[in-house]
């Protein structure tokens, strides 16, 4: 799973209101050789049939897919949490899904992904909180930081909905507060392939 040039092994992203455009912006900036696996929780209505994978498919060089239960996390892949399921990282480096109760009124929940990813990847993880209107992701980002990982939040000024980045920043566990325009390039510099 390792990118040759960095000690980071995965990126987790959490986004809510306004997230579709924000995630798209980040993805579109990634260079073709970007190979760290990305796992995304985008809050979405539990009753929709998921269209996110189709939506992002032609917008980045990574292979985009809705995460399947117990599939191994591979480099070059972009995994999206299915509607109405939590997405977790299992102890063997596979993804796992659950229908446990919503966390922060959300299923999938960003905290659930971030916390389980921090358990598995430790300091080799990058966590990014983007635009959103609740506080999901703040605790997860804090845990990533506690495990020595790298934490990034979108600036409040460039966020369509501000509560989520604001809550993340308030934890005091954020390494970089970046405007939406530069997050993709920031990631490009980390993955040296």
């Amino acid at each position: 799973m390792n990118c040759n040039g960095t000690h980071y092994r995965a990126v987790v992203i959490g986004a809510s209101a306004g997230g579709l455009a924000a995630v798209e912006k980040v993805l579109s900036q990634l260079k073709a050789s970007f190979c760290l696996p990305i796992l995304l929780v985008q809050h979405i209505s539990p009753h929709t049939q998921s269209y996110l994978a189709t939506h992002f498919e032609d917008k980045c060089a990574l292979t985009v897919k809705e995460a399947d239960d117990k599939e191994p996390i591979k480099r070059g892949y972009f995994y999206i949490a299915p509607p109405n399921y939590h997405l977790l990282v299992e102890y063997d480096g596979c993804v796992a899904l659950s229908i446990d109760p919503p966390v922060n009124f959300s299923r999938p929940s960003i905290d659930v992904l971030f916390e389980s990813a921090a358990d598995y990847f430790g300091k080799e993880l990058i966590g990014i909180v983007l635009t959103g209107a609740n506080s999901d992701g703040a605790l997860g980002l804090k845990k990533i930081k506690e495990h020595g990982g790298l934490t990034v939040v979108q600036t409040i000024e460039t966020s369509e909905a501000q509560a989520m980045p604001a809550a993340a920043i308030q934890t005091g566990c954020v390494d970089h507060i970046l405007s939406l325009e530069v997050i993709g390039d920031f990631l490009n510099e980390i993955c040296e392939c």
Partner: protein
Amino acid sequence: MFEENKTANEYLEIQLLLEAIYRKYGYDFREYSVAHTRRRLEYRRAREGMTNYSSMQHKVIHEPAFFEQLLLDLSINVTEMFRDPWFYQKVRELVFPHLQTYPFVKVWHAGCSAGQEVYSMAIMLEEALMRERTQLYATDFNEAILEKAKNGIYPMDVVRQYTTNYQAANGATSLSDYYTADYDSVIIKSQLKEKILFSPHNLATDGVFGEMHLIFCRNVLIYFNRELQNRVFNLFYESLVPGGFLCLGSKESLRFSDVASKFELVSEREKIYRKKREG
């Protein structure tokens, strides 16, 4: 894999805790998905104010009441009546015509939790005029939850969601025809319960169950690791008549199991499989 000793140690402590539960009480969570088990344990640990899983292990060994609490934490699954209404529509459309060719039909809800799904099915069979010649079996390893399922009492606020689901699944009448309402809860009518046999069965440790025409096991197997999933799929294969149907959760799949080639996928999105006839 575990560069930080803290994580590795914690993982070891969880394994030992689950081992203690198995050896002392016989419930086997050792092959459950760890990420998910850990979340539930952590919730209880934080509430009890314990700093690590070793102290939790001590408490679970010496205090059966604490074990009962932990058992609930580890086994409650959240579901709704007519969860994924489109799934139920598909069952009615694709599976019922086959069931109607049998003089008597046996249906197994494996991991029935608090009973929402088996009552959904009982309603559908009622509406298809098949109640008289159907036997439903609802099993769960947790007897406290099984008791809840038997009682069939649900809080009013979730019933609103159930009603929406029922309508979206093209129910024939009104969901309220099937329950009696109290101030803040509803109780499922006894005519629906008559055809259901509630019984303890543990998918992780128990064996084949009857000769079923249809098995429901939705969003249970995602909580298991690959090896246990595979064993349970074999158990289902053995428990089905040739041509019998198996319904999984929409994100579960037979694809990686060793019985994959012995089933045909009848409906992709709904994850409805059919056991092939031999030869």
